[in-house]
């Protein structure tokens, strides 16, 4: 997708998102979904950049998200750092962890990268629940229940006031999305694609796999950590239950629906997945059952996710719309 088209698409999407609170500002239930869509769209985009563009089988995305959330929560609760700063510090910490995880991963391939990154995910649970975690203020198994809201210009942003929080998230989403788009379309992005196609070929062009992959890890985990922190201050409570397989799979489904490496497909994937998951929630155990089936069917029949068939399906409609305009 060309840069112009990509930016136009995202602009269109976020313009629509931006005016949503005008209609639904009074409905907490829908505002919550909208905010979660914004947050997940960025987190899933980061994963898409790692997997789809850099071609690294990272399974550590949820871990980075949780690290960011916990980092900001601990900094603001135990050390009384104002959330505005703790969020950014959380991003930096997550970025550093990303580099640390990235260093050994770059020597590995395929399921090994997946395993090592997922091992980070798995170690987080006993770490945060255990004595070490409690020592740094993770609150052990009960988690942290009193995370302060973000205070900015005398306003408090938290789940108590959804519309202001929506626009704060919206603002950060736009910035991070721009960063991601520029990364994908810059020399970096080209380098990723070259790397994905053939590492040897890219090496012959003088693209250092090591350097670029590390940079991807650092940047995406920074953004992921930032949004994790945002989420922590949004819900105001954290527990290690965030590391359950469910969150992981939901994130994965966003990518499958959106199409891996088909940015910004994953953003639409986030919209559909979050909404679907919410709609199906009253169905209890049939929700994950249906989600699982959707993944199987999509992977099998739609190689690039749901995006291209939708475009194809809607193209006559689009033409009509254009003609009417």
């Amino acid at each position, binding site marked *: 997708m060309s840069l112009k088209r990509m930016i136009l698409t995202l602009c269109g999407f976020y313009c629509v998102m931006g005016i*949503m609170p005008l209609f639904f500002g009074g409905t907490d239930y829908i505002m919550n979904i909208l905010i979660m869509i914004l947050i997940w769209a960025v987190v899933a985009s980061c994963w898409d950049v790692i997997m789809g563009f850099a071609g690294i089988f990272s399974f550590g995305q949820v871990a980075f998200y949780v690290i960011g959330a916990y980092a900001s929560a601990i900094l603001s609760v135990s050390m009384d750092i104002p959330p505005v700063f703790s969020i950014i510090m959380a991003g930096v910490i997550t970025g550093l962890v990303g580099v640390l995880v990235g260093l050994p991963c770059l020597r590995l391939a395929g399921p090994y990268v997946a395993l090592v990154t997922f091992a980070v995910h798995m170690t987080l649970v006993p770490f945060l629940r255990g004595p070490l975690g409690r020592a740094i203020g993770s609150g052990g198994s009960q988690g942290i229940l009193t995370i302060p809201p973000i205070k900015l210009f005398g306003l408090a942003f938290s789940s108590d006031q959804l519309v202001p929080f929506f626009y704060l998230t919206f603002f950060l989403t736009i910035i991070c999305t721009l960063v991601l788009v520029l990364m994908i379309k810059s020399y970096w992005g080209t380098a990723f694609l070259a790397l994905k196609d053939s590492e040897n070929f890219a090496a012959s062009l003088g693209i250092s796999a090591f350097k670029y992959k590390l940079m991807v890890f650092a940047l995406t985990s920074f953004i992921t950590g930032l949004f994790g922190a945002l989420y922590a201050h949004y819900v105001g409570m*954290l527990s290690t239950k965030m590391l359950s397989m469910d969150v992981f799979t939901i994130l994965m489904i966003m990518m499958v629906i959106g199409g891996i490496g088909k940015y910004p497909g994953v953003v639409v994937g986030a919209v559909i997945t979050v909404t679907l998951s919410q*709609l199906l929630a009253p169905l209890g155990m049939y929700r994950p059952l249906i989600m699982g089936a959707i993944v199987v069917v999509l992977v099998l029949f739609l190689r690039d996710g749901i995006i291209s068939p939708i475009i194809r399906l809607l193209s006559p409609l689009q033409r009509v719309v254009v003609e009417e305009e």
Partner: protein
Amino acid sequence: MRKTGLLAIIFTFVMLTTTSVFAADTIKVGVPLAATGAYAGSGDNYWKGIEMAINEINKGGGLLGKQLEVIRFDSQEFAPEVVMQGANYLCGKMKVASVHAGWAGWGQDIRAYGKYDAPFFCDDGAMPAVDVYKSDPEKYYNTYFITDTGGDQANSMFNMLTALPYEYPNKKIVIINTDDAWGMEVGDTLSKQFKKIGWKVAKRETVPYGINEWGPILTKIRRINPAIIHIEIPSSQEVITFFRQFIKQPTNSILSYGWSITPLEVLTTLGKDADGIVGEMPAGMPAPKAPNAKAQAWVDQYMNIYKHPVPAGSWIAYTSVMVWADAVKAVGDEYDFKAVNKHLKEAGYDGLQGKMKFGENNTLHAQPAAPIVHYQVQDGKLVALFTDPPLKPYGEYKFQMPRWIKK
């Protein structure tokens, strides 16, 4: 592509907004329980009690002439976001008149449902949840804890263990508990109490869920040969495998299972093998004979419908629905949350075991009408030895010496 996103959003929100049903002739009751995942078993126990109460009310003509309509929500494994979604869905979107939960998120739930006013009944049974309540009692005034906290329950366990008609051969106890809020709270309280009376906590081990191979721990226990082994793991697999591996080479110890005796599978799987284990149930129903005819009738009805003995949570979840219905009847308007909450807090309720009342911190502290019941497994069934408070022997049932203890 832009249009695609737009259409997708419009489509989903049309779907979202149209799904809310505006039926006026029912009263909606929210039931957020774990229907999937590790806590689904306990969710099922609570659900059975709630279902029974709702059916009973509906059969009796409903509440204020309206039928009750249950809206369920799967709170999975209580991830913060899911807990919040549940509150927003049930209270925000479906506008339920009350929320009946069991385990619901150990404190996260208080914050999530505290934003709304519909009465919220939960069985978190742990101090962190009560701490959230205490941080702003005004805001969380609609929260009701239907059982005591872990610490209070552990004190009761301690009292029972020391009151057993049994001469302990030594003063050593081994405590094994899970690494969650409940397990830690019980473990900490028990070890503090036993130390106070001069016992030695020979081993205190916090374990994660999912252990099926107990060899290494049992090896240590056999060396210690303690007078009491207390296990506090609110999950059936671990405690069953522990018992099986313990019994192949037992020590002269009283096996105290605390709350872990209550998951349904423990007794259905172990049967008579489990004879001799002691344990407790908060807000429980004494067994095999209920304390009065009314309660006995309820137990019989339960066994009739679900074909198994009453597990932890069922009775109190049933009662919580009844308590709320009683308050609504008294107020006359299910949506007058201020009045309903006031009634819930101030007026008592005449339950199956007697008059009960929510106490300090909106907690249904152990009381004669909702006692902590201490059982021993005898002939493959739970037999109440004591009720608490006050700690007194129940009925004619007697402690039996576990068969593995050699004099």
